[in-house]
C-alpha cells in the first residue's frame, strides 16, 4: 500500500511538472515571431528563434508569421485615361515587420490581408485610371517587330511614347500602397505584381473583330503581291523574248547580207576580166533556160545561124 501511494504521488508530481514546464517554456520557431501578452496586454515581442520562458497561466503567447506572406487580390474593372475598360488583377507579397504593432492594430493575419485588399486595390485603381492603356500594357519603348512591313508601318503610326511602362507603374502602385503601412500596422510590402491586365469580357468580341480584319487585310495584300510579281515576271519574259528574237533576226540578216556582198565581189572579180564574153555566155545560158516547148520563135534570116541557109559560099551572102 505504501508503495502504491508513492507511485501515485510520483505520477501526480510528474504531471504537475509537465504542466508547469509547458506553461512556462515556449519555443519560437525560425519561421515565427511572437508577442507575449499578460491579461491581453502585450508585454514582450520575440523575433529571434529559441527556447523562452514566461509566467505560466498569466502570460500568453501570440504567434505570427515571420516569413513573407502572399496576398491575392480580386480582379477589378478599371477605366483607363483613354476610356478603355480593362480588368486588372494584382498579387502581392508582404510581411509582418513589427509584431507588436501588428498585434495591437490588427490582431490577426487575416485582418492584415483585409487592410491590403483596400489599400492595394485603391492604389491600383488610382494609378491605372490615370494612364493610357498602352502605358500599362507596354513596359518599355522597344520597337515592335513584325513579319510584314505593312504591319510594322501601321503600328508605327499607332505607336505612343511610353513614359513609364508597366514595371514602373507596378512600383508606383507599391510605393503608394506602402504609405503608412509600417507606422500604422507594422506591415511591409515586399512586392506588388500586376498579374494580369485584360479587356473586360464585353469588349473582347470587338477586339477579335479588329484582329480578324487586320489579318484578312494582310492576307489580301499577300495575294495581290503575288499577282503583281507574276505580272512583272510575265512582262520581263515578253521583253526578253523580243530582245532574243530581234537579236537573232539582226544577226541572221547581217550574215546573209555579208554573204551576198561577198558573192557579188567574187563574181565581179571573175567577170570583169572579160565582160563581153561573160554576157555572151550568160545570154546563151538564158536561152537554154527560157525556151521550152510552148515558145514561138520569130527570127530574121539575117542571123548568124541562118547564114548558110541561103548560101554556103565562104562569102557572106549579104556582102
Amino acid at each position, binding site marked *: 500500500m505504501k508503495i502504491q501511494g508513492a507511485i501515485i504521488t510520483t505520477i501526480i508530481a510528474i504531471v504537475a511538472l509537465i504542466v508547469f514546464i509547458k506553461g512556462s517554456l515556449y519555443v*519560437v520557431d*525560425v*519561421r515565427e515571431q511572437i508577442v507575449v501578452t499578460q491579461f491581453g496586454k502585450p508585454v514582450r515581442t520575440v523575433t529571434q*528563434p*529559441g527556447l523562452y520562458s514566461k509566467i505560466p497561466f498569466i502570460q500568453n503567447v501570440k504567434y505570427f508569421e515571420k516569413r*513573407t506572406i502572399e496576398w*491575392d487580390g480580386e480582379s477589378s474593372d478599371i477605366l483607363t485615361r483613354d476610356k478603355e475598360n480593362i480588368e486588372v488583377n494584382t*498579387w502581392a507579397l508582404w510581411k509582418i515587420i513589427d509584431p507588436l504593432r501588428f498585434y495591437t492594430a490588427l490582431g490577426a493575419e487575416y485582418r492584415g490581408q483585409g487592410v491590403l485588399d483596400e489599400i492595394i486595390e485603391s492604389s491600383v485603381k488610382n494609378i491605372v485610371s490615370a494612364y493610357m492603356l*498602352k502605358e500599362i500594357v507596354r*513596359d518599355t519603348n522597344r520597337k*515592335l*517587330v513584325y*513579319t*510584314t512591313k505593312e504591319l510594322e508601318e501601321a*503600328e508605327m503610326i499607332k505607336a505612343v511614347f511610353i513614359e513609364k511602362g508597366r514595371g514602373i507603374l507596378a512600383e508606383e502602385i507599391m510605393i503608394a500602397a506602402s504609405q503608412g503601412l509600417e507606422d500604422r500596422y507594422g506591415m511591409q510590402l515586399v*512586392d506588388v*505584381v500586376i498579374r*494580369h*491586365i*485584360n*479587356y473586360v469580357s464585353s469588349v473582347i468580341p470587338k*477586339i*477579335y473583330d479588329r*484582329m*480578324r*480584319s487586320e*489579318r484578312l487585310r494582310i*492576307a489580301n495584300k499577300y*495575294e495581290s503581291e*503575288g499577282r503583281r510579281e*507574276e505580272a512583272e*515576271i510575265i512582262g520581263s*519574259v515578253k521583253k526578253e*523574248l523580243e530582245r*532574243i528574237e530581234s537579236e*537573232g533576226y539582226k*544577226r*541572221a540578216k547581217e*550574215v*546573209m547580207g555579208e*554573204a551576198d556582198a561577198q*558573192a557579188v565581189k567574187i563574181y565581179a572579180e*571573175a*567577170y570583169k576580166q*572579160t565582160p563581153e564574153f561573160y554576157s*555572151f555566155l550568160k545570154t*546563151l545560158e538564158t536561152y537554154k533556160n*527560157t*525556151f521550152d*516547148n*510552148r*515558145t*514561138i520563135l*520569130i*527570127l*530574121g*534570116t539575117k*542571123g*548568124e*545561124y541562118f547564114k548558110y541557109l541561103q548560101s554556103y559560099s565562104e562569102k557572106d551572102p549579104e556582102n
Partner: protein
Amino acid sequence: MANGYESRPPEFNLDSINWPSNKKYIFLGIGIIALIIGTSFSYFTVNANQEAVILRFGRYIETVGPGLHFRVPIINKVLVGEVKRIYNEEFGFRTRSSGKTSTFDYDFPGAQEESLMLTGDLNCAEVHWVIRYKIMNLKDFFFNVRDVKEALRQVSQGVMRKIVGDRSIDEVLTVGRTEIEDKVKIEIGDKLDSYNCGISIQVVMLKGVNPPQAVKEAFNAVNQAVQIRDRIINDAEGQKNKILPAALGKKEQVIKEAEGYQIKRINQAQGDTNAFLAILEEYKKAQDVTRRRLYLETMAEILPKCEKLYLIDEKQKSILPFLNLGSKLQGSESKLLETEGAK
C-alpha cells in the same frame, strides 16, 4: 515537406511481464521500453534525393545530406525537402496524364485567365508555358517565403504578361519566342532571388502560343495567302524558264541558218566563177571558133524545143497580120523573142 520521422511500433519485452511479483523487473522493463521507443524516434533517414534542415528549439542548426541522422526528440525538429527533384509548373494547361502520349487539358476552369494575355499592340494571344525549377537552398526555401510555389506561379504570370505586353502579336506567335523564354526566365529568377525563396528556375518553355480560337481562321488565312502568293510566283517563274530557253534556241537556229546560207552562197559564187574562168582560159586560145561553136551548140539545143519557128526576111516588114498569133498566145506564158542573133 514531410517530417523525417521514422517510427516503429514499440516492442514489448515479454521478460518484464513474466515476473510481475518482482518489482525490479517492472522498472527495468519500463526503462527498456522507453529506451527503445526513444531511440526509434531519435533516428531519421534522409533519402538520396533529399536534404534535411535540423532545428533545435526552433533555431536553425544545420542542413544535412542523405543518410541516417540522429535527433533528440522534442528538442530537435527536422524539415526534409527534395533538393534534387525538378519541379514542374504548368500555366494555361494541365497535363492530364503523362507518358508516351501525354494528354493535355487546355479547358480546365480558369484556363483562359491563365493563358489569355494582351500583346503590345493590344491584340490577344493565348500563351501556354511550363516552368521547371529546383530547390537550391533548403534553408531559404523553408524560412523566407510561406508559399514558395504560389509565389512562383503568380510571379511567372506577371512576368510573362509584362514581357508579352512589350511585344507585337507577330513576335509572340512566331519570331520572338526564344527571346521571350529567355527574358521571362531571367526576370522570374531575379524576382524570386529578391524574395530569397531558395529556388532556381531551370527552364521556361513556351509550349504553345496561339491566337484566340475566334480569330484563328483569320490567322490561317494569312498563311494560306502566303502559300497562294508563292505558288503564283513559282508558276510564273516556271513559265519564264520554259519560254526563254526555247527562244534562245530559236535565235541560235536562225543565226546558224544564215551562216549556212553564207557558206553556200560563197561556195556557189566560187564554183560559178571558177567554171567561168576555166572556160575563159580555153576561149582565149581560140576565140572565134569557140565563140561560134558555143553559139551554134546553143541554137541547136534550143531551136528543136520551140513549138514554132518563123523565119522572116529582113525586107518583109509586116507579117504579123498573117499570123494568128493572138489565139495562140492567149493565156499562155509563151515568150516572144526577137533576136538579132549573136554577133
